């Protein structure tokens, strides 16, 4: 192995009394891709930020960060500025918030060129065009004067990459560059990064929590947990023969299992015909409706008892809106029959008796629990509405039972949501839905805010609850791996319409539409298959 480009030795980062990382050491050789893998809180992002000294002043660092034999920890601000954006550059997770919203694309990229290469406006413009072309932005000339909000998520991340590559750095630090993107766009961006890296011969420090991406893109991998690197090695051997218990745990954590078999003669629980959710676009002085955004556009579906209907699609495909409309949380048009009751057109009050039978679990366990209520009040709230005759002791007993069902101790009910981890909070949210003994539950991306190992546990819990109580699920997700583990039936949505509909096993085995196959290739193999215009249409 040649002399390392970046060499980190005994790096310890402290915030006050707590250690974010402890005695980290790793090397990156020129042209190599090193992946740092770990779950949230493992200290991987802090490590990435520490290389360019971008941490807040409250962080105390000790150890050595040698870049081309220069210790960046002791470098002066002037020396650091010469390195930042020039020799080492960085891509961040959120492409929307890491581009300045009031500057055009040309100005943002031109700034980097002007600072480090002193290019004049004309030369900078030519170089910017070259870079935009290299990162695969169609018609770069017309995009020069665009603002970040006029670009799609994928295009924004491409602009970020163009900025990072503007000075042909020796090392690119990518901090979860594709986490905020849809799977198909993620696959495109990763492919782009890989090919650019080969062309420019740069090294890459790639931070991610997604093992699929690591397999695809990295040469070597460092597995991090609780601020320490527990295992380092080339990707293939490490994955096939993991040594450390945590690595094995992480590899085993991907959602597994198959959905329970269903009875094809079971009665239909949910029946929806021609469901539409159109948001009017209003223009002009009189706010006349000039058109509609068709979030959900003529959906038909039916779900039998004990079945799980998976709804997949990329962001903006209308899948969450469909779930909300089904529960009448937002106004819609079309027929909705739940448990034999026509619910479209019922008043809010007339809906209330049915609400106990149809529940929902939300995506974000941090947002879906009221921070000011204790857990027993959160779970007991539905009981107070639907079973007001329960005595306090009976209600408490039901809350305890619901907590036990989701694997939480009874004492948890006296605490507040902020005292729990993300996975535990999602269990509380599930308990809140389950305590009413519903027949039909809409699960709106219940696992996507969670770490992989916790995702698997939540999937197991949901499947277990379904078998025990004969529940019917509608499982909304963009994560095909999770859907494969739970869904019997599958709907693929795009731009508010159903692209493909059928038994999940059949669709996973032989997708009929191009869009579905592109989605699956991106999700399972991080590969790009051309489907017509995969970038979602840009709102103008």
């Amino acid at each position, binding site marked *: 192995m040649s002399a390392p480009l970046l060499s980190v030795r005994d790096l310890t980062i402290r915030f006050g009394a707590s250690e974010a990382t402890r005695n980290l050491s790793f090397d990156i050789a020129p042209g190599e891709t090193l992946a740092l893998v770990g779950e949230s809180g493992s200290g991987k992002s802090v490590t990435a930020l520490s290389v360019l000294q971008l941490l807040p002043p409250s962080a105390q660092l000790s150890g050595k960060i040698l870049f081309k034999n220069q210790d960046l920890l002791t470098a002066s601000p002037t020396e650091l500025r010469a390195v930042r954006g020039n020799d080492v550059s960085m891509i961040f997770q959120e492409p929307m918030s890491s581009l300045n919203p009031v500057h055009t694309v040309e100005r943002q990229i031109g700034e980097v060129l002007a600072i480090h290469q002193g290019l004049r406006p004309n030369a900078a413009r030519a170089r910017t065009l070259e870079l935009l072309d290299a990162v695969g932005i169609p018609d770069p000339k017309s995009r020069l004067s665009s603002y970040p909000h006029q670009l799609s998520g994928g295009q924004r991340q491409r602009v970020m990459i163009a900025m990072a590559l503007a000075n042909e750095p020796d090392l690119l630090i990518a901090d979860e560059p594709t986490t905020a993107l849809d799977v198909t766009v993620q696959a495109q961006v990763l492919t782009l990064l890989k090919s650019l890296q080969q062309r420019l011969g740069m090294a890459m420090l790639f931070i991610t929590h997604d093992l699929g991406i690591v397999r695809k893109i990295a040469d070597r991998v460092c597995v991090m947990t609780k601020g320490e690197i527990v295992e380092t090695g080339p990707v293939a051997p490490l994955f096939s023969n993991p040594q450390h218990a945590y690595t094995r745990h992480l590899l085993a954590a991907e959602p597994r299992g198959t959905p329970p078999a269903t009875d094809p003669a079971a009665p239909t629980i949910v029946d929806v015909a021609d469901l539409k959710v159109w948001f009017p676009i209003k223009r002009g002085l009189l706010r006349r409706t000039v058109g509609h955004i068709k979030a959900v556009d003529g959906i038909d579906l039916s779900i039998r008892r004990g079945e799980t209907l998976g709804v997949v699609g990329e962001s903006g495909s209308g899948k969450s809106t469909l779930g*909300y409309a089904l*529960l009448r*949380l937002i106004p819609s048009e079309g027929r909705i029959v739940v448990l034999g009751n026509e619910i479209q057109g019922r008043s*809010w009050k007339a*809906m*209330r*008796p049915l*609400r*106990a039978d*149809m*529940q*929902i679990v*939300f*995506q*974000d366990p941090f*947002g*879906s*629990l*009221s921070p*000011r*209520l204790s857990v*027993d009040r959160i779970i007991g*709230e*539905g009981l107070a*509405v*639907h079973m007001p005759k329960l005595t306090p*002791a*009976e209600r*408490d*007993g039901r809350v*305890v*039972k619901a907590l036990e069902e989701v694997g939480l101790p*009874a004492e948890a009910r*006296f605490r*507040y949501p902020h005292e729990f981890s993300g996975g535990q909070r999602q269990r509380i*949210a599930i308990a*809140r839905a389950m305590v*009413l003994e519903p027949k039909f539950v809409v699960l709106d991306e219940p696992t996507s805010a969670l770490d992989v190992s916790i995702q698997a546990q939540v999937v197991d819990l949901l499947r277990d609850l379904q078998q025990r109580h004969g529940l019917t699920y509608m499982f909304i997700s963009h994560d095909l791996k999770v859907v494969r583990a739970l869904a019997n039936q599958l709907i693929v949505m795009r731009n508010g319409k159903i692209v493909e509909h059928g038994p999940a096993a059949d669709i996973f085995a032989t997708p009929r539409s191009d869009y579905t196959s592109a989605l699956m290739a991106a999700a399972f193999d991080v590969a790009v298959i051309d489907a017509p215009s995969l970038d979602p249409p840009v709102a103008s």
Partner: protein
Amino acid sequence: MTDQMQQAAAIEAPRNPTLSPLNQRRWLNFKRNRRGWWSLWIFLALFLATLGSEFIANDRPILVSYKGELLFPAFVDYPESKFGGFLAVTNYRDEFIASDISANGWALWPPVHFSYQTIDTYLPYSGSVAPSWLMSWEEFCSRYPAQTADPNCHMGNYHWLGTDDRGRDVLARLLYGFRISVLFGLTLTLFSSIIGVVAGAVQGYFGGWVDLLFQRFIEIWTSIPALYLLLIISSVIAPSFWVLLGILLLFSWVALVGIVRAEFLRGRNFEYIAAARALGVSNWTIMFRHLLPNAMVATLTFMPFILSGSVVTLTSLDLLGFGLPPGSPSLGELLAQGKNDLQAPWLGLTGFFTIAIMMTLLVFIGEAVRDAFDPRKSMA
């Protein structure tokens, strides 16, 4: 009853006697603002002291022992016949009554023997009289029947801050005036907060047409020049404490609507609100159990400023002569007298310093409350 339920019943939900960690941090932040912390204590001390104004400045004794009977003139109106007189209400400052009481027992007087409407009949000269400590003992007692030898020529009849043009003691009027200003301000703040929070909550939560119409209404309402309207109304309706409160309330409730509405607009899209809606919880319960706590921070931060604003409004109405009914102790009336009688600077100076100090204390407290609820400080 099953085992499990018995167990559940056995474990009483522990009621947390102390504040939640977040509120503890807020309390610490409040204390850390030393200026606001001291202002709070000084203000509370002044307010508590003036709440007991009857025990500091009064024209009747607190306690009287008369022919072996214990009487409480500060609280009970005894007819004069009790002491051998003939009026319906006893005038304890009267020499006849005083000598009768001292012959048959004793009287415990507050340090200042004047109430806010007691007219001192033994003033050395007419018009506003300067503070007694600015004159000699002989001058102070010059109008008493027996001059310096008079039993009533004592420190209890001193006018520490002088008198106004009708011979009423300024210190007594100041104490009672401070009390009525603060009580008025607190009541007005309380009622306008309740109305403002409810109105803001309804607008923010329901949005749409409700919000649109209500907002336009408020815009029109706030564009009415409130002070002039108040002048007109109070010249038609005889002003009293509650009438004035009602009139001022007409305009002061809008102060909080904007921020509460904004908090509700933001909050109604939270996922836990959607979760509560999916549970079938009623709108009012959602508003008050889930959303109101979010708006409370903004409301509480604003309250000290609304309080100081209310006090200022009352004072300015009093200054213009459209405030509390004539004869009531009021800071605005004191200021008006000071303005009309520049030869008596103790009137204007007393009024000015009282209002300036009260406003300063309230604003300092308000700043400390704002710091305490600042999320950048309390969450860090």
